[in-house]
């Protein structure tokens, strides 16, 4: 039985990692300053649906792989940490026992934590290891917009997927 559960966990994390990569690389919405990618939608969806550990691994690994594939390998460790922690924190905040609905306050808190983790995480780690404080600070508005939009869409998508595919509830760990 444990063997079956392990196989399911590996399969789930692998597919969710691939989902994060696809949402990061394929779906791009043009904006005035460049592109918004939808990695945060996938991360929030995973955090809301699958629990903290799936969210941590799939979010971190997925965004790191997306960076490697798109030729920004130097960002991969930073993305792994920032988005991994983002997924973990959101999932821990919205985690529920049974089928209770998540309260609005917890959703709001999760949204704020999502935005803060992405914008401050990228700012701190990028200023420390890759660029400078001024260059890293210039990226904060873009990161706030992307993670904010990602969180709202992720929330909508998570509830839509639970309605369209109810067996998804049994996959959380």
């Amino acid at each position, binding site marked *: 039985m444990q063997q079956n559960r392990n196989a399911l966990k590996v399969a789930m994390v692998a597919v969710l990692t691939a989902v994060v990569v696809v949402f990061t690389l394929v779906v791009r919405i043009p904006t005035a300053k460049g592109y918004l990618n939808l990695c945060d939608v996938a991360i929030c969806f995973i955090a809301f649906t699958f629990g903290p550990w799936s969210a941590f691994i799939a979010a971190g690994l997925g965004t790191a792989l997306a960076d490697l594939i798109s030729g920004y390998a130097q960002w991969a460790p930073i993305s792994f940490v920032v988005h991994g922690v983002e997924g973990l924190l959101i999932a821990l905040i919205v985690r529920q026992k049974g089928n209770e609905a998540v309260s609005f306050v917890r959703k709001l808190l999760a949204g704020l934590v999502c935005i803060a983790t992405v914008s401050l995480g990228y700012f701190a780690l990028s200023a420390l290891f890759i660029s*400078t404080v001024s260059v890293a600070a210039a990226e904060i508005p873009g990161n706030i917009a992307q993670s904010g939009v990602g969180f709202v869409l992720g929330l909508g998508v998570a509830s839509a997927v639970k309605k369209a595919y109810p067996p998804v509830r049994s996959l959380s760990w």
Partner: protein
Amino acid sequence: MTINTFVAGKGLLYRFDPRAKLLTVILLCIWFFLPVSLVGLYTVVGLLVLVGALNTGFSHIAKTFLSILPMLLFMVLFMPFNVRDGESLISIGSFTLITTEGLEQATRLAGRFIGITYACTLLFATTVMQEVMLALRSFHLPYKAGLVVTLAFTYIPFIAESFSQIAESHSLREAESDQGKRIVQRLKDLVPTLTSALVVALRSIPNLAMSLELRGFGSEQKRSSFKDLSSYRHPFTHTLLSCIMLVVFWVLFRVQ
């Protein structure tokens, strides 16, 4: 969607042991943060670019540099204005615009940024992803973690293809095109597409789990294992060479 970063070639780097290459890149990234002279930093970056050019060609270098150019420009243009230490280089009236310290820091940062970016890019351009995974395995990456990454790479094209097909189907059902729509409306319209794509991806999880179980995943006796890197004959020599090279660079270029 292309997920292959490998550039086919026959140069020295392609014959270099992947374990040694991985270690070199990690050590090189650390080396760029050591207190070395500016001349030393740019000598190592120049050598790295030269080795890259001999192995992957100039077009690959140009592609890499074009991708980091906006960030590099931003860094070089704004950094000198933020650092106020050192002698004044350019000033307007009594206001100092650029100082020697600011210029030096910007140059150092740009060199470090180019070096780290190019070292990482070169690793993945001269090593197939499967060998990177094998190299990580030889550094004791857990079996399950390696399996998750290889399975994810298998599923990326499938999910990307499903997403494109679903997005096309949804756009065909819409009366008006995306062109005139506001960004909020465009984001709202994405929800059904994303939901459908996610449901398709999630439906593949039970099948994949069943395939893993049938392959004996998790049983006491392992039925499948990763290949090994035995085709590379001199892993020890290559690793030693990488470490010696970086120590020599450090001794030559450290700030006295």
